């Protein structure tokens, strides 16, 4: 009871703040929480003629297709593996480049390169996959044309699953690091000049300043990016994998992730229950992970935790 009283009191005290927050809360309530009723589809047999809550409850049967082909472990492993590499390398790369760009003295150089580094973000994966095919295809690809000109044997990249781990990671980084670089760049811009001035007076060189001032100041931003990527660790980057690999089953052992698997399954079955079930599996995984990680972060430093 006293808690409730506390809330009312808080509501009155901070009414302006509540009012300012209200539109956002209302939005998420309507836009995200209301449709969550649909999660129930994961547990019923879908039928066009029956209202949702009258459909036959079938327990976990809709989840069955996930493990039926015996690939669930491999898929989960691939999905998490790729995402961890993406998070690690992606953040390292964008932080490094953001610091380098921010330290560059020439103004026009800075401006031009910033724009250019952001360019790949605008290239859609469909188009990217066409370019990749033009580089690597066996008969007419740029790579093999060069190899043949040098007298070497041509390579069939499209039948080498291991190579695709590298290719996928490289193209992911290429396309997306510009986005997080801009975030880091903005965070660096927010750091007061006086910190650097003080460090300069203390005799710190550029490397030391970057290491001791800039990096720690980016921790907060990093944690946000980390928590958001961890929450969706079982999803994501569908287009990248789907467009690059397509129908080529030879590469699936290293390139198939949960999203592509689910997409292909639902192309043949059209079942809403199964689609929802896959989403629930992904969500539960991300939810558990995020509760743990956020808890750990909270223990280390309360300020950095998301909630």
């Amino acid at each position, binding site marked *: 009871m006293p808690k409730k009283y506390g809330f009312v009191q808080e509501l009155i005290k901070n009414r302006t703040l509540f009012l300012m927050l209200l539109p956002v809360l209302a939005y998420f309530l309507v836009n995200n*929480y209301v449709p*969550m*009723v649909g999660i129930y589809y994961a547990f019923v047999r879908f039928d066009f003629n029956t*209202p949702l809550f009258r459909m036959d409850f079938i327990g976990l049967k809709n989840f069955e297709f996930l493990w039926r*082909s015996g690939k669930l472990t491999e898929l989960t492993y691939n999905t998490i593996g790729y995402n961890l590499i993406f998070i690690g390398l992606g953040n390292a790369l964008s932080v490094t480049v953001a610091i380098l760009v921010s330290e560059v003295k020439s103004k026009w150089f800075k401006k031009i390169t910033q724009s250019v580094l952001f360019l790949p973000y605008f290239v859609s994966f469909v188009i990217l996959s066409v370019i990749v095919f033009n580089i690597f295809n066996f008969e007419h690809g740029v790579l093999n044309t060069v190899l043949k000109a040098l007298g070497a044997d041509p390579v069939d990249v499209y039948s080498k699953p291991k190579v695709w781990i590298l290719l996928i990671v490289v193209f992911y980084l290429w396309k997306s690091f510009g986005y997080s670089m801009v975030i880091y760049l903005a965070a660096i811009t927010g750091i007061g000049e006086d910190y650097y001035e003080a460090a300069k007076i203390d005799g710190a060189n550029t490397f030391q300043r970057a290491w001791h001032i800039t990096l720690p100041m980016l921790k907060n931003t990093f944690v946000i990016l980390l928590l958001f990527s961890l929450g969706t660790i079982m999803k994501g980057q569908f287009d990248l994998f789907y467009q690059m690999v397509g129908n080529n089953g030879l590469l699936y052992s290293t390139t198939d992730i949960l999203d592509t*698997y689910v997409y292909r399954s639902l192309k043949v*079955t059209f079942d809403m229950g199964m689609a929802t079930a896959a989403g629930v599996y992904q969500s539960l995984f991300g939810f558990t992970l995020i509760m743990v990680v956020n808890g750990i972060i909270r223990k280390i430093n309360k300020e950095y*935790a998301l909630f």
Partner: protein
Amino acid sequence: MKHTIRAWRTGVVAAAVLLLAACQGHGSGDASLPSPSASSAFTHPDANGGRSADDRSEHVDLQFYMLGSAPPDMPRIQSAINEMTEAELNASVTFNFIAWTDYDLKYKQLLSSGQSVDLLFTADWAQYQTYAKRGAFLPLDDLLPAASPALQRFVPQETWDAVRIDGHIYTVPSTFKEYVTGGFVWREDLREKYGLPKPVDIATFEAYLAGIKRHEPDMQPVAIGAEVQNALAFSQLDVTRHSIGSMPYGLLATYANPADVRSYWGSPEQLADLKLFKRWSDLGYFSKNELNTSEFNQDRIIDGSAAAMFGDNLIRYNEALNNMQAAHPDWRLGYYPFPMAKGYATPVHPTHNGFAIPKSAKHPERALAFYEKLVTDERYNRLTEYGIEGVNYTIEDGYYRMIGDTSTNGFPREAMNGWAWRNPEYMLFAPSYDEIRSTFRELDRIQKPDIYTGFAEDDTAYQAEKAALDQVQKLYLYPLLAGLVDDVDAGLATFMKEAKEAGLDKVQAAYKKQWLAYLKERGIAGS
């Protein structure tokens, strides 16, 4: 820490409360339903009790859904149509287009959200049978005589019967007879130049490919594309093994003996076929990376980068020919229909093109009345198939002639993709269609009905296995088909082992049972 737990517990409780609130919120409009989330969306307006007769004094707006993209002149056509419907049916029609991109997703949405859709295009390849079987469409049996008697008479009884699913009619089929059967496509000018044999079966086709490889080393002898199952396996099954249709799950039944269904997967026949494709791949008849090509096969023929196709229908062949000759007037193409090689031809099945009324339709009677006009009234039909005479097209010597070209004409021939409401009596053809028609007439002489496409599978009992099997196919069978596995025998053994683990036997048995029951119901006995 304690605080966190409390915070998230509160969060979960809040979410649960919201969920409940949402459910109740939806149902508050209808007190008679106990757990009616979204019930208003799913329940048919007249689900309980009989349907009241259509009251024409009430003005209605019909929502018409078609695949494709709206041609530039669509607003003019729509208003011209609406002028007539307002006067004759007291209704207006909105023509909506479902973009090609993710059309299957859109179908799912339209049909499961309860949105008001009065008329929707259906096709066997757009899962007509599945949706009908699952109850997404309104049965038309009782509606037809009352709402559109002329339409009911216009479509022959056996055509109505052919589209029945579990005894009911769910779609208004097209009555235009055409053939979309496969055939060999090749470069006739190159064949003559190098004195190669005319492809009429696999042996001659291979000889042609070998000749092309020898004389035109930069050309890919045959374009396959990423859908290797369609382009290789199903073509081969059709032309060589006389399959009744492209049965799923590796099953094979011949046209002559439909009741004898057996597993093609794992059979000596399949092994032989896979070795054939492997040979083609090894000899360089198609690219090692066929699975990743994104170019359209026809485009590769038109631009001269490939010299043949293994299985395309006459209509698309004709289009490719016209486009190719526009760019390269001295190139020529040849075509040999698979049916000629087989000795029988199956005209397109009536489920191939049709219009259904979804369960969620607000005005089913008026929709049928409008569709009747669209099919049987020449004014409606010509307007929606060919546009406005004198603006979009003219009729010369009985032939259709487009005004301008496809980039300047606001409504090229069949721009609304009105395949389903084609009426043979009002149809207009371009002169280039004559070749197709003459081949069609030849095929007519050896025609036999399509007994496969009318079958509607009920996969609810084995959906998980079905999905798993599809994965196994992509993983192990596609590389085999594309000639990427060195040891074909071992590759096939692996595929079979994985397929069996995914539930192949169960799925095949269930499908077979349904198939035999269908044959019995239709009175088709194995000879």
